[in-house]
């Protein structure tokens, strides 16, 4: 049996802790040998593993995999530095602040060095099951998608680096809405046409707290996404309409449980059968009670590393595709809109 891959984590906030737990749940394939965080107070609270204040010292341990869990503005440079040293990289989303960042990362990809991004929603059980059904062809082609993804912010929301444009590069769309747009891409591929309305009406940050994005691709598939930091009731909902049926993934297994019980609702198109209520087809609802997404995505990455096979899900190309969609959305949001007097002062786009 092969020795476990030596792993390091850079950035030990919320995501760093999650990645550590995943590594430690897979002792047969991974071994955590060091954590780097520039914050001394955070380092002081880490037990059971060596800690470093400088990335170079962690990389000097000749690790196989680096988990990059830093704020958006730092991720690209760290990814590039690690890959230059032949270290496989698993990086949290978003892949930097803008398209330039992800393009720079891609330029440093090397043959045999794996790079994957943390689009863990692809591995949520409701999404996995929905993808199996779509790929089976049971309901025919996808006609359109509709996504709602929102949170309420909270007491510490104002202080979060996520709302500092210099660090994050964008607001709720780049932070949370990116998952929904990535899922659109996961189900339908690229969306070339992107329109967007964005606003910062409530939180008054320099980044958007609401974005309404409408998309269409060359196959004629349409999608809409409302990404919000003013959903006082936390919401995740993805509707998938196909030729012969429809599906809804609603709720999301999460640490807090605030998005509700994750479920997949599946219904056959039934309007031919006049004996049943038209537009109210029989439904099958699957409830899920275990979120394995964090484990599954890392297991997939480790499999690619061990087998030296290409990363085909949550790859750098997937990351580029979704960042291009977001960039188009931000660019469109900046265009003057006749109906909204205040949109003219907004600057949600990438400068």
């Amino acid at each position, binding site marked *: 049996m092969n020795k476990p891959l030596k792993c390091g984590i850079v950035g030990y906030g919320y995501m760093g802790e999650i990645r550590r737990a995943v590594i430690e749940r897979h002792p047969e394939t991974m071994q955590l040998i060091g954590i780097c965080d520039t914050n001394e107070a955070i380092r002081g609270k880490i037990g059971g593993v060596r800690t470093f204040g400088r990335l170079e010292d962690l990389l000097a341990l000749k690790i196989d995999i680096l988990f990059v869990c830093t704020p958006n503005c730092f991720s690209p440079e760290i990814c590039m530095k690690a890959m230059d040293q032949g270290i496989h990289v698993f990086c949290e989303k978003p892949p930097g602040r803008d398209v330039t960042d992800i393009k720079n990362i891609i330029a440093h990809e090397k043959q045999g060095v794996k790079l994957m991004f943390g689009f863990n929603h692809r591995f949520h059980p409701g999404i996995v099951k929905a993808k199996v059904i779509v*790929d*089976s062809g049971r309901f025919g082609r996808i006609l359109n998608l509709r996504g709602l993804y929102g949170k309420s912010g909270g007491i510490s929301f104002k202080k979060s680096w996520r709302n500092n444009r210099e660090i994050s590069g964008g607001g709720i769309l780049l932070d949370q809405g990116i998952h929904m747009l990535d899922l659109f891409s996961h189900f339908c591929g690229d969306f070339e046409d992107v329109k967007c309305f964005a606003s910062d009406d409530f939180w008054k940050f320099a980044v958007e707290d609401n974005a309404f994005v409408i998309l269409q691709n060359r196959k004629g598939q349409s999608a809409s996404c409302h990404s919000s930091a003013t959903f006082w009731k936390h919401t995740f909902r993805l509707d998938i309409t196909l030729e012969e049926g429809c599906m809804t993934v609603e709720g999301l297994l999460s640490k807090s449980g605030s998005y509700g019980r994750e479920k997949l609702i599946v219904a056959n198109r039934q309007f031919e059968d006049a004996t049943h209520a038209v537009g109210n087809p029989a*439904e099958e*609802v*699957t409830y899920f009670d275990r979120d394995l997404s964090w484990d599954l995505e890392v297991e997939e990455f480790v499999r690619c590393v061990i087998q030296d096979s290409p990363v085909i899900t949550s790859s750098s190309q997937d990351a580029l595709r979704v960042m291009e969609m977001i960039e188009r959305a931000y660019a469109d949001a900046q265009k003057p809109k006749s109906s909204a007097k205040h949109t003219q002062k907004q600057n949600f786009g990438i400068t």
Partner: protein
Amino acid sequence: MKNIVINDQYDQLDLKPSQLIERYISLTQRDVGKILADPAQLSVCHCPACGATEKQQAFVKFSLTYQECQHCRTLYVSPRPNDTMLNDYYLKSDARAFWCNELSQLTDKKRKEKVIKPRFQWILESTREYFPNAKTWVDINTSQYSYIDAMADADIFENKILLNPYLPLEPQDYPRVAIVKKPWWEEPAIDQVSVISLFEVIDHTADVGRLMATVNAMLSKGGLCFLTAILSSGFDIQTLWEQAENLHPPDRLNCFSVKGLHALFEKYGFECLELSTPGIFDLEFVAKKLKEQPCLNVPRFVRDLIERKDEETKRAFQEFLQSACMSSYGRILIRKKG
């Protein structure tokens, strides 16, 4: 673990017309008396689910005694016939012949649409999800020809095997399905199986532990087993108890509780991926019984629900039973641990 809720609208009479069911039950009672009821041939057993010895007599049906496990609340017949006797029963019984040749044929169209199609979709989609490289599917003891048709059409499997000594089948009847006319306990030389289906088989198996051990041995690592069963923890069984029409020997020699099933799977090396109770007839079964026996002793709440509430409320109640895993029809997916 998953839990499925199905919101569909059809009547139990579509699948189980009253007159045919009454005839089937009456034939079963007669056959049990003729073939299975000799006390000298019956053996006392412990709970087939959790193995607990503590039990309490629940009721007697067709001269066989149902016990209730005091640990997991599974209902089971003890003393009971063994699997060889049951095999003999299912080969000779007029009731079984009536089920296969008349009842299931007469309700075939609706069964195909409402039972078989969703069941096969469940198998195909779950296999794609959990075992995408599946090659071999073995079905044990299906009692309906329509299953075999659907099995033959399941192209994601290279090999399809029917392990069934009961149906009068010849290999040429289903060229795309290999037919092995042996009971499962004769341990046919089948291994490295990806998927096994056991539709209502654990309900009428005497030695369930041996069945689960056999299934485990047949499956490859990570192999899947799809089961359906009637559950003692379901609403209609709990409400009607010995009056429950669908609870009788030998078809329901075992009536497992959800807790009991978890214990059984754990004991024989399986991980439970899905345990759902997507039944849609619980309330309807109780309502039917109340109509037949207006003085039947049921909780006031249940009587009020059935006699005074509108259809929408009843549907919502049945959906609640499903989402809380409290319906009596269970559908389960387990995976062999690695």
